[in-house]
């Protein structure tokens, strides 16, 4: 009896830990399998299309022009724009929610921001197509409002809830004693926020920014609806005001009707690999910075 009583919890514990382990490893397994699949489908493109053709500035797959630079440039341009919008607004909102807003306001605002994050991107795309882009055209006197700028504004909007949510949690986790110490030494509230709270939460804030960037670069539906999808290689910041085509929109628009196993099909997967690598790099940089800062913080605090 006694033995069984001891065995029972052990068995339970064992099953649960195994299940959790499997769940944890499966995430890695899935990522590896997805990457292998992408490689398998995408790498043949490198054999079928000459490298200088892939690096040309003309994307027109109907006639076998497979230059992916305009798409890469479009994605980077729009993501850059979205980051420039999402970071100040997102972190500003997070600081306001965590440091300045009274409790009742915060209880209302935070769920609202999170609901914003749950808006389907098609809906935002519709708003962009019917409201934002006509407005931008008239406001800035552009030939057309369907431009990289419209995409960047909407993607910024999509990334803001992610940035706010994560950055606010990071700020919230800074011990109250830090702020008290700073205020006690005569610092103003702004000085406390800028010099003490934000630096103390910097790794969380950085994670927030990176997650926001990741959200922006992978977004598809909205950009497809508002950026005009013209594969023009951006050559400067002025191209914010002209149409652009992203990698995600290209895959989404063309995958549906491409013949399985054709060159075009493989090139689309190659673009998928590129997207995968970009988000991998963003994540690796984020965790490297976070890791380094943690070590520095540990040194200072210990």
């Amino acid at each position: 009896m006694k033995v069984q009583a001891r065995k029972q919890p052990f068995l339970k514990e064992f099953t649960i830990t195994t299940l959790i382990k499997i769940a944890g490893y499966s995430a890695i397994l899935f990522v590896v399998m997805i990457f292998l699949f992408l490689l398998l489908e995408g790498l043949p493109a490198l054999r079928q299309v000459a490298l200088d053709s892939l690096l040309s500035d003309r994307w027109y797959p109907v006639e076998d022009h497979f230059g992916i630079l305009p798409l890469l440039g479009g994605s980077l341009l729009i993501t850059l724009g979205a980051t420039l919008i999402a970071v100040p607004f997102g972190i500003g909102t997070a600081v306001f929610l965590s440091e300045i807003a009274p409790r009742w306001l915060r209880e209302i605002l935070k769920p609202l921001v999170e609901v914003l994050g749950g808006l389907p991107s098609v809906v935002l795309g519709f708003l962009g197509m019917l409201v934002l882009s006509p407005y931008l055209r008239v406001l800035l006197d552009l030939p057309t409002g369907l431009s990289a700028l419209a995409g960047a504004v909407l993607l910024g909007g999509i990334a803001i809830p992610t940035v706010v949510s994560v950055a606010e949690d990071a700020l919230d986790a800074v011990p109250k004693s830090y702020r008290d110490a700073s205020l006690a030494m005569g610092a103003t509230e702004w000085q406390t926020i800028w010099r003490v709270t934000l630096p103390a939460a910097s790794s969380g804030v950085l994670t927030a920014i990176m997650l926001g960037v990741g959200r922006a670069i992978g977004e598809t539906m909205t950009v497809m609806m508002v950026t005009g999808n013209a594969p023009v290689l951006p050559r400067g910041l002025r191209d914010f005001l002209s149409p652009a085509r992203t990698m995600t929109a290209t895959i989404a628009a063309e995958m549906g009707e491409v013949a399985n196993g054709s060159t075009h099909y493989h090139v689309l997967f190659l673009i998928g690999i590129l997207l995968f690598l970009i988000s991998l790099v963003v994540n690796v940089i984020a965790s490297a910075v976070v890791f380094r800062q943690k070590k520095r913080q540990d040194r200072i605090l210990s």
Partner: protein
Amino acid sequence: MLPEPFHHIIFVMKTRWLAIILLFCMLIAQSSCAGHASPSAEKSTHLGTIENKGSDTIVNLALAWAEEYQTIHPEVHLSVTGGGSGTGIAALINGTVDIANASRQIKEEERESALANGTEPVEFIIARDAIAVIVHLDNPVDYLTLEQISDIYSGKISNWLEVGGEDRPIVRLSRETNSGTHVYFLEKVIRLGEKENTTLFSRDTLLLPSSEGISAEIRQNPNAIGYDGLGYVTEEMKVIGVATAPGGDYIFPSQATVNSGEYPIARDLYMYTNGQPEGMIADYLAWILSPDAQSIVTELGFVPIKQ
């Protein structure tokens, strides 16, 4: 500090999934409202199923036909799907469909691979489609020649002033490259039907994923020029009269001008079967070519074939 933020990501993700699931529910509800192609309960009375797949241009027409035909012949079950002309023809070659819809003629390579696979595609012209060139209502330009349209889309003309309009930049709108309409417009208009011509769309042509995208932009942007099937043209945009050569008559697209061959940007829509159709497939195709079925063509904004 790290684990806590992830609560909220999960929350964000949950709401997003909820939204997606809701959207799916709506879509499913909608498609079951439309009621076609749903596997019906009285299967015993069915003679058989006709699988019909292909062009997105034709899919609405094919659905309307299928719906009508099934009320007359409840013993025949029709299943209609889109996916594009190429997809439909590929499915016919692989023998997974009985009828392929195509907004373009079958290519030589496709015919060869079909023959190699033991299928012999037989062509039926089932309707015609005019492609209208459209601009904003306030645009003073009423007429263009084919060559002017070609020059506009290839990037040689970039200001409305050059074709008799106001001093405004031209914003070119097109459907995505996977659309049969896009390919037709490239061959017939931009390359003026010349085989050796390798002119392409100007790089800065906006490629919009839907007809709605094109009409939304045309409605509000006086700089824009676009093209789309006649069935998609509404009162809120202006249709341009097109002349084949400078000095020729400017013709507006309509049923009459398409059938008389005067309007230059019109194409046939096709269905392909595997070998000469027999039995219920032959009956169905015969019905499609009948006046009853062709009146549905008119309702949907396409042009019926000459009787």
